[in-house]
């Protein structure tokens, strides 16, 4: 027991939690934006892969790191546009279209990677984002090492939490977005475009998801591997419900999952001899499901989620 307490109090544990949480923060915020407008985006898993591949590829081809981030975001927005057109004006099943986007984006990323590098056996590396050392802030006890000695992309993720919250709650655009996810007729009757708002939200959300993928190749690791997204996208879909579609709680949910994951790695080394390793690997997911069961009962679903809306059909 003492060991667990020691882990929980250590700076390195919380720094690792935030690092593991970073792609999830991007992903949950992205899924949240899409769903707030009424569109479920199951393309997230594939968009993660596309963001990871495109960001890395851009840097490997000679772009700067921030150029890579931009390319990843654009790639995400592109897949968001596909999903948006299929589900919003065409009104196709959001589940089917989303899974289709995931398959398409994943395969296209692998295909592009293989075509560009047909003969390479060990993945080529890039120079990733380095940990920051922000003067003064980094020297704050505990908070400094945990928050301010991360990479720039983690800072960006935290800034995005604030930005998404601000846009949703303090701007006219956010009010319109929340309205279109609750009752599209309210937006239409006030002369705004339901299609425009929804496609825009899905594109912006997908761009954020792609940044989560880009974090993997440009910050957490320095290369692109097959299967590296490894279900992170699906976790985000669950975390949105846990967060009850609120950006602050989305951050909390991502951190919670990150902490479970960081904890299981450390516990594995502590008591790994007695318990099979799979139990630890499973732990974050089991705990997340449990947290979800508790939180989902009170979750405030966007009322129009999954419901297509057609112009002139009332």
């Amino acid at each position, binding site marked *: 027991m003492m060991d667990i307490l020691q882990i929980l109090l250590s700076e390195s544990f919380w720094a690792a939690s935030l690092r593991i949480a970073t792609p999830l923060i991007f992903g949950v915020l992205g899924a949240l934006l899409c769903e707030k407008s009424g569109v479920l985006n199951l393309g997230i898993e594939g968009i993660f892969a596309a963001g990871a591949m495109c960001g890395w590829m851009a840097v490997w081809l000679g772009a700067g790191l921030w150029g890579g981030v931009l390319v990843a975001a654009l790639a995400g927005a592109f897949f968001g546009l596909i999903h948006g057109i299929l589900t919003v004006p065409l009104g196709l099943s959001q589940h089917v279209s989303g899974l289709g986007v995931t398959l398409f984006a994943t395969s296209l990323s692998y295909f592009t990677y293989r075509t560009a590098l047909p003969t390479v056996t060990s993945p080529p590396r890039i120079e990733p984002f380095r940990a920051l050392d922000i003067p003064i802030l980094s020297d704050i006890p505990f908070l400094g090492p945990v928050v301010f000695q991360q990479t720039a992309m983690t800072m960006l993720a935290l800034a995005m939490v604030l930005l998404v919250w601000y846009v949703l709650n*303090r*701007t*006219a*655009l956010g*009010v*319109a977005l*929340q*309205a279109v*996810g*609750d*009752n599209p*007729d*309210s*937006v*239409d*009757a*006030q*002369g*705004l475009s339901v299609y425009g708002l929804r496609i825009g939200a899905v594109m912006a959300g997908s761009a954020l998801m792609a940044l989560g993928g880009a974090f993997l190749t440009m910050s957490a690791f320095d290369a692109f591997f097959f299967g590296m997204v490894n279900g992170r996208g699906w976790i985000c879909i669950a975390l949105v419900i846990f967060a009850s579609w609120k950006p602050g709680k989305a951050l909390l949910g991502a951190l919670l999952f990150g902490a479970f994951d960081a904890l299981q790695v450390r516990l594995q080394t502590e008591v790994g001899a007695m318990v099979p390793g799979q139990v630890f690997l499973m732990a974050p997911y089991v705990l997340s499901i449990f947290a979800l069961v508790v939180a989902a009962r009170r979750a*405030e679903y*966007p*009322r129009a989620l999954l419901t297509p809306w057609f112009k*002139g059909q*009332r």
Partner: protein
Amino acid sequence: MTLQKVLSLNALSKRFGSVVANDAVSLELHRGEVLALLGENGAGKTTLMNMLFGHYMPDGGSIDVATPSGDMQPLTLGHPQAALSAGIGMVHQHFTLAENLSALDNITLGSEPLFALRRDRAGARAKVQGIMDRTGLTAPLDTPVGKLSVGERQRVEILKALYRDARILVLDEPTAVLTPQEADTLFENIGAMTRDGLAVIFISHKLREVLAFSHRIAVLRHGVKVGEIATSDADQRVIARMMVGEDTPTPTRAAMTPGAPVLTLSGLGLRSAAARDRLTDVNLTVHAHEILGIAGVSGNGQSALAAVISGLRRPDSGSIQVDGVEILNPNPKTMIKAGVGRIPEDRHHDGIVGAMSVAENMIIERLDDPLVQSNGLLNRDAIATNAKTLSQSYDVRGPGIDAGARLLSGGNIQKLILARVFEQNARLILANQPIRGLDMGAAAEVSRRLLEARAAGAGVLLISEDLDEILGLADRIMVIHDGQLTEVSSRNREDIGLKMAGEQT
């Protein structure tokens, strides 16, 4: 009244597939005028207004709207945004409000620049407050709309239009969801607004309020404007004839002595998280040869009461007796067996299985009848014969008895349900909103059948939100409010209205 023209619809036409919804309808509206648009369901009233507001693109015709200075300008068709900027506001029958947002956010939605970094909420609030002070339409501005009452939501809808400087206000069946008193208040507010120059078009099928509150009446039938009349020259009979095209005989209710009780509910209670699904200590008795009317504003426990009597929900306390026998295990099967015939509220959804044929829907509640099946196999000839006989005697018209029931019109679906219920010689008939949404002919037919069942010795429990329907059919009246029933002895709409609002105990 000044006769300054503010709106003219010029020969507007709209067709959906082969159905002509509006055929060259022209209409004029003047400053400060209240125009009532009347017509049966499907006459094309809402379609016409949706074209005016840009929800639908007309197939032909044009619209001219007066600018604030009074010049008539053609309106860009098919764009709500254009209608809004021309000063046209519309309050839809189904509210177009985002329930997760506050009233203030709903009101300002779409009128501020989308991509500005900040919003001028203080300025917006001051403007809304000014409108509320001027018109007497008040609503809490900061509560999420989902928590507001129906009357408050409607006021938010009107405020939305006025906030955008509407000079023409369209109200689609504004009183359908209000108590009589709330409706009167609404029309008082409208009166105040028209004195400031607002022009109002309201759609209704309640002749009483049309006669009391409009200046002019336009009547649509089958998509064509069949008449226009100054309200001072109109009366109920004249308008009804214009709407239907002929005189409809109103069924007369002969006096009858009630017989033995056929349904007795005592101390019935139903718990639920949602207030609208709760019942508290409900006691009622329906006798043979009697129609008991349950009046009330929608969402006060009517659905829960109907669900309990249909056997769809098991009460948490109290007892149910049908024809003197206590039902110990209420479920749909035992209730049908006990002699309860059910005419459900949502006839399309709960009354029929749309994908099954008309013939199958007619026998669906008596599958264990030996006439219908033997040894588990359906007797198709008997089912077809039964369907032919019933279709004829109940005048069910449609593409035939083998066609899917969903292809029938609302009135014919209702007749199919009546045929099914009455052929079982039900002791008690639960009629939940049996007339809502039917045209006058079908409505008269339903009323006649209910009175026939009453004459034949059945008891009828009539649940309706339309007070006129209850006053016309019921022998006794009870009011449901907040899950509780109270008997009213008076047949005065004022008294009943107050009870419906829960203001009198």
